[in-house]
């Protein structure tokens, strides 16, 4: 059992056009002290999942099923106040919009102190000295605590938000695209800092990103998310070296940083499915060069083999598929109308 255990967690948005099933049964486990990277295209449900874990979903979203255990406690069974005890004291978050996450009219230090006083039960002076301590930890001069958010650069704001997340010594930090909004040099600085922090603090990390190079840099494990589900999950080296789900193979081909020797990048053609009415079969089938009839009919379950999990009917043939994957995806790009269009009509 890990620090964080999800089993079939589902989140739905109520919209005027019906329910959108943004997270469709996610099962994951994160052992204490490890870092898990959650990757996927935008709109695959990563951020929704993260916000469900901290218990702050948009107004029209709610958790519709599954189990969410933290340190063995079923979080969904806790009431509002019970959940709030965990929030920030044990589970903290670096939200996606870290640039705009600080109150513009209050000094950064006051916002940190406020959180520590109200949530950590510290005195104001203890909170302020703790704030200075963490500021140093994230590489910011303590003097910056007296500044307003707009007086900080993007990178500094990001560090300040990370400092705020570490303020109460949480066991788990969820970081949603922590470096996406930063320019490349600052990205590297922040990533290195995050890695050092993990080493010194031993905090567990759930890192959410669309950029698999960031995961390779920071994480022990990786889970690939597609259309509200986990499609592949395992140790970083293993998953990226020998992916077993065609989507992971495609992602690997679509990103420059991992395989620098590759002459050109091959994008994955098409768009994720409409989650108003998720497809009956595998959600990736319409974009998959290896889809067979079974893929259109049954949704494959996430099955574990050799410490790795993949949700693909053809996972056992993965080694063979990997050989022709680049050409296969390239063919999909060239054929404007992909061959498996017909089965969509079959109902």
């Amino acid at each position, binding site marked *: 059992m890990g620090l964080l255990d999800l089993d079939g967690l589902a989140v739905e948005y109520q919209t*005027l056009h019906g329910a959108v099933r943004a997270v469709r049964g996610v099962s994951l486990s994160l052992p204490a002290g490890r870092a898990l990277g959650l990757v996927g295209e935008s709109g695959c449900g990563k951020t929704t999942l993260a916000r469900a874990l901290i218990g702050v979903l*948009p*107004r*029209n979203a709610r958790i519709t099923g599954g189990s969410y255990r933290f340190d063995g406690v079923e979080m969904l069974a806790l009431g509002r106040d019970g959940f709030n005890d965990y929030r920030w004291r044990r589970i903290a978050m670096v939200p996606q919009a870290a640039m705009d996450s600080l109150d513009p009219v209050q000094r950064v230090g006051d916002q940190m102190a406020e959180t520590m006083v109200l949530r950590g039960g510290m005195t104001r002076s203890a909170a302020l000295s703790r704030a200075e301590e963490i500021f140093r930890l994230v590489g910011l001069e303590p003097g910056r605590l007296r500044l307003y958010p707009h007086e900080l650069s993007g990178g500094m704001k990001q560090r300040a938000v990370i400092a705020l997340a570490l303020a109460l010594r949480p066991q788990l930090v969820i970081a949603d695209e922590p470096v996406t909004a930063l320019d490349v040099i600052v990205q590297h600085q922040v990533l290195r800092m995050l890695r050092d922090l993990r080493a010194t603090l031993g905090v567990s990390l759930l890192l959410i990103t669309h950029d698999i190079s960031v995961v390779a840099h920071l994480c022990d494990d990786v889970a690939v998310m597609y259309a509200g589900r986990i499609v592949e999950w395992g140790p970083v080296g293993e998953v990226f070296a020998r992916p077993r789900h065609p989507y992971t193979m495609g992602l690997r081909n679509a990103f420059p940083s991992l395989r620098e020797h590759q002459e050109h990048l091959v994008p994955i053609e098409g768009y994720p499915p409409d989650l108003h009415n998720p497809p009956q079969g595998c959600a990736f089938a319409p974009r998959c060069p290896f889809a067979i009839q079974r893929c259109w009919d049954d949704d494959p379950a996430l099955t574990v083999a050799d410490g790795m999990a993949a949700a693909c009917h053809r996972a056992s043939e993965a080694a063979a598929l990997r050989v022709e994957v680049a050409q296969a995806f390239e063919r999909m790009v060239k054929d404007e109308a992909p061959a498996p269009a017909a089965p969509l009509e079959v109902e």
Partner: protein
Amino acid sequence: MSGADRALALPPRWSRANATWREALQTMVVVARRDRFALAGLIIYLVFVVIAVLAPAVAPYPPFELNYQPDGEVAANLGPSVHHLLGTTNLGRDIFSQLLYGSRAALVVGFVAALGVVILGTIVGLFAGYFGGWVDTVLMRAADVAFGIPFLPMAIVLVAFLGPSIWNVVLVMTLLLWRDTGRIVRAQVLSLRERSYVEAARVLGASHLRTMFVHIAPNVLPLSFLYGALAVGWAILTEASISFLGFGDPNVVSWGFMLQDAYNSQALARQAFYWFVPPGVCIMLAVMAGFFISRGYEELLFPRLRRR
């Protein structure tokens, strides 16, 4: 129904920000169909228009006529009765007839002034936003000045000097109220100017005027219309205020004129509510209709606040 959803129901090409004049007009219809408040506003205007057109046929007496009782006495200060639905003024004029005729002044002032405001404001905004540079600077400084002028005092001074006629009231309002429309249209044009279809039109040899009025104007029209709907209300309210202060056209019955008449004729002391309540209610309805329509527009164009 939320604003976002309404936005989806717009004529298909609208949201792509390359509207034609026809589509801009279609949007107006959509607003009325989608928003209960906007619909209510339109209905109020329609009713007033019908009343204004039919006033001579429907009104039981000419508005300025002195009425006499059967015994030859002037029918002054009568309460409501079958003969005079809302009673009579201290000079024996029929209040109900005045109320019906009053809709004419209100609508003429309201709509003509709003039209003036929209036209002047849109043209200023188009020129300032499209040409930028010194044209922009000069026009926007002018808008600053217009914002700095105390509106009602200036209106009073101008009407007092130009002479008491409703056309002067209309003129004054156009000269003073274009500023809001001008500023907002300019901001919109600034963002539209960068769009590719505007550039395309220029590359294909469209003249500046053609680009402005054929390619850009339809896109800002709904925005102008929003401010126009508000201006109708402001104009009616201002006309009433000016008339109430005694600077209005003495030969035109307006609701403000009626209220001034009532105020100066001790109607308050006599508790003649039938005299001074109806005109006020009419002004309020007409102004609210403008608010409602502009609100319907606002939520269609800026659905941000209604989201979720």
